[in-house]
Every structure is written in C-alpha cells, then in structure tokens.
C-alpha cells in the first residue's frame, strides 16, 4: 500500500512537472532556444494570479482564464523582439539574454512584492481530497493539475499533428531553411511556438501557486526539474514529457520515503541514469540531439 501511495503521489507531482516542462521542450525543439527565464515566467504568472486577478474581480482559481491568454500574447511579442534579435546574433546570445531576463524578473519581483511567500488562494478546495484507501489521499488540486497537464499535452499533440499551422511548426523545427522554401515565415512560426510555450508555463505557474508557496526566487529550482523532465522524457516528444514528469515525481517520492532529505537526490539520480544509459531520453529520437 505504501508503494502504491508513492506511485500515486509521484504521478500527481509528475503531472505538474510535465505541465511546467512542455513549454521548455517546445522552445528548445522549435526555436533551439534554451529559455533560462522559463521558471521565472511561471513565477510571474503566479504573482499575476495573486495580485492582478482580484483587481478584475476574478476569483484566483479562475485567474488563468485571463493570465494564460495575456502570457501567450506576451510570449509572441517577446519572441518577435528580444529573443529573435538574440537568435539573429548567435545561439550563445540567447542563453545570455534569457539568463539576464531571469535576473531582471527575479529582482523586479523582489522589489515590488518582497521576498514573502505567496499562494494562489483557492479557498477550501485546497484541503479537499479523495480518500480511496486507508493511507492514500488524492488531493483534488493535484488531480486537477495532472488532468490539466494531460489535457494540455493532448491538445498540443492534436494541434501539432492535425492542423496546418501545427504542421508548419514541426516543419520549422525539422529544417528551418526548407520550411522557408515551403513558404513559412519562420519568425512568425517562432512567435506562435513561443506564445504556446508562455501560455503553458503561465498555467504551470498558477498551478504551482495553488499547490504550494512561491517566492520571487522559486523559478530556479523548478527550471532544474523541468530540464530533468525534458531529458528523461526525450527532447521533442510531448508524451515523453508527461512520462518524464511522472518518472521524476515517482523517483522523488521514493527518495522521500527512504529519507525526507533524499527527495531531490533520488530525482537527480534518475536523471543521471537516463543520461548515461539512454542519452536521447525515453521517448526521444536518437538524432534529435545532434
């Protein structure tokens, strides 16, 4: 029963990790940009949900209805201006620029909202859970986040494989030059991909704020987990991202079961094992890395 609980709790956390990581995976897969500000974007979304949604007389639970579209728009604009400018220089510049962005965001948040922890207030829902067996509690919030992750990945999968625009995004990811020769405006496609990535990370940031406390510096550690998820699952595979998230979540729960201080260590060991045994990730294509 204890083991079943570890798997269930791990899968629930894993849903959040997958939701958090899929934007990172998309940005890298399509734009070849490693967005070091990814975690901080999520934190900004959390603050937006806590401080801006009430001004619109919107319950914080439903704040994503506003924050997510706004983030998509911001993602498109930031891509077409700041990130595209750095891509045009060279790939290394994008690392510097997104790192700089991360520093700026963290310090702005500290300046404006202080270092106090915040949570997205969802009322009594936070304490409710489903209790199927003696020691197993399934939190409705975590279950909701896992469901959201599956829905988002499903929608993204359908969009990329079935729609014309999604196909163009994959074409640009495969071969940018050949996509241009097929009529794609790759800058616009990059913008769309960034918009999707920002929208998903906003959703993840709000979900994080519902599950636990966050502060201006919370982005970094989550970014690390997101990297691990993408590597474990395999770059460019959406279902890999979900499986990678759940695998990381279970590994961490397993570590925590042995000793609470082993929680993060166990996740890192899984990450290193995958990197050593299967560097392309569980669902990655072998040539995706090259």
């Amino acid at each position, binding site marked *: 029963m204890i083991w079943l609980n570890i798997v269930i709790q791990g899968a629930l956390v894993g849903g959040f990790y997958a939701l958090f990581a899929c934007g990172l995976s998309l940005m890298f897969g399509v734009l070849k940009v490693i967005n070091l500000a990814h975690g901080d974007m999520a934190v900004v979304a959390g603050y937006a949900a806590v401080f801006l949604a009430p001004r619109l007389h919107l319950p914080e639970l439903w704040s994503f209805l506003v924050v997510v579209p706004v983030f998509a728009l911001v993602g498109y604009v930031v891509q077409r201006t700041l990130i595209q400018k750095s891509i045009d220089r060279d790939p290394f510049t994008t690392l510097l620029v997104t790192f700089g962005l991360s520093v700026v965001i963290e310090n702005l948040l500290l300046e404006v909202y202080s270092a106090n922890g915040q949570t997205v207030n969802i009322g009594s829902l936070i304490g409710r859970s489903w209790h199927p067996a003696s020691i197993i509690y399934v939190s409705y919030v975590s279950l909701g986040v896992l469901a959201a992750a599956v829905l988002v990945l499903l929608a993204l999968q359908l969009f990329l494989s079935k729609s014309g625009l999604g196909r163009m995004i994959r074409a640009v990811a*495969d071969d940018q030059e050949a996509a241009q020769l097929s009529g794609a405006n790759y800058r616009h496609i990059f913008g769309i991909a960034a918009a999707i990535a920002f929208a998903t990370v906003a959703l993840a940031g709000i979900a994080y704020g519902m599950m636990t406390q966050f502060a201006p510096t919370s982005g970094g550690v989550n970014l690390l987990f997101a990297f691990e998820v993408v590597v474990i699952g395999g770059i460019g595979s959406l279902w890999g991202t979900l499986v990678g998230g759940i695998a990381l979540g279970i590994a961490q729960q397993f570590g925590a079961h042995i000793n609470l201080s082993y929680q993060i260590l166990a996740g890192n060991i899984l990450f290193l094992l995958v990197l050593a045994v299967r560097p392309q990730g569980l669902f990655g294509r072998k040539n995706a890395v090259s």
Partner: protein
Amino acid sequence: MSGPLLQVDALTVHHGQLCAIDDVSFSIDEGEILAVIGANGAGKSTLLRTIAGLHHPTSGSVLLDGQVINALPPNRRVALGVSLVPEGRRLFSSMTLEENLQVGAYHANPGPFDIKRVYELFDWMPSRRKQSVWQLSGGEQQAVAIGRALVANPRVLLLDELSLGLAPIVIEKIYALVPDIIAQGVSILIVEQDVSQGVSAADRVHCLLEGRTSMTGTPAELTSEEIDRAYFGAGLSSTMPESGAAS
C-alpha cells in the same frame, strides 16, 4: 508577357571573403528551361540559393517580372512564384510523405498543382503516403521534394542538383517529368554537375566557371569541346574524357 519572367542582373555574391558568384547575368522566359552547369564549387548552388532568397547578393539584383526582389525573404518569394528544390532534398524528416506535401501546400498559390495532381504525376505515392520520408529511397525522396515545391504552384521552379547521389535510371525517370511540368506553364532553372542531363533537358545552357559566366548558348549550337572548355577552364579540355561530366 513582354519582358523575361526571371532575370538575374550583374549578380555578385560573397561567402565572407570568397567571391562565389561574380557578375553573372541571365534571364528566363515563361515556359523556358535553362540549365546552369559547372563543376563543383563553380557557384551554382549559391546562385540558386540567392535567387530563392537564402543568400543576399553583394551587388546586382534578382528581378521577377521586372521587379527587384533582392530584399524579400524566401517565403515571400514563394508567394510570388519562386520555389527551390534544395540540394540534398531537405525533407521534413519527422513527417510522412503526405505531411511533407501538406507543408508545401499550406502557403500555396492558386494554380494547376495540388497534392492530388502530384499523386497523379508520381503514381507510387498514394499507396505510401503515410510512410515516414526516411523510409523512402533517394529517388523517391527527390520526387517528394519536387512535389513539395510543385504544390506551391511556382511560376519558376529552381532545381538544385537533382541527380546527386541517384542511380542513372532514377535520374532519367525524374527528368522525364520535366515536360509535364513545363506543360503547365512553369519555367525551370536546373543546376547540374552532370552536364549530359542538364544539357539534354534544357532550351538554353549557361556555364559557370569559378563564379563567372564561361559560356552561354543553346544545346544545338554548342559542341562538347566548347562545353568542356567552359566547364573546366581553358587548356584542360584536351586532357579530359569525352563526356566532360565530373562524376
């Protein structure tokens, strides 16, 4: 139509310090086939990539219908009717055959070609449309690359090294399609290392040597000695085999 469809005027292109194309001019009329031949490194691919918008000229211009299109990115040129089948085919490797064609058709101009028409042109395609393109042979991949460019309904089709890495019988099959394409009013600019293929398919031949024009003419008025000299440079032709092909 009064003037030429596509015109290249005093075009000079540099790769860093290297001058890849040096003061090259030519034009193509509607429905015409021009073959640009030349040895490895003569600047043929650079020429096509510059026309398609992937390289920027140092000086000179590319004109379509008499309008300078130097500043337009590749996707805008596709919209105006300039499509390149790039060297090495460059298919979208994570996609199926049909998806590759769908990408080409997404920003298509109106015209005679669509995916159905391409399937008629290559009758083996419909039964294999769900296959990943990496499962196809080199010749089949080349056919998909041509199909992907055709569904955009170009007015001028740029073909870069169609024959590269393909068996002679496969090359013959692909060149057999050229009349079908021309019949739809499409002009073709072929770049070839394989002189015999290029020359036999073309209305006119333009030979490049180290980035400069070394010869122009129609296949009928050119002797193989003239072609050899233009292809390899002066003095070399007498020591070269009769065919003059580099391969």
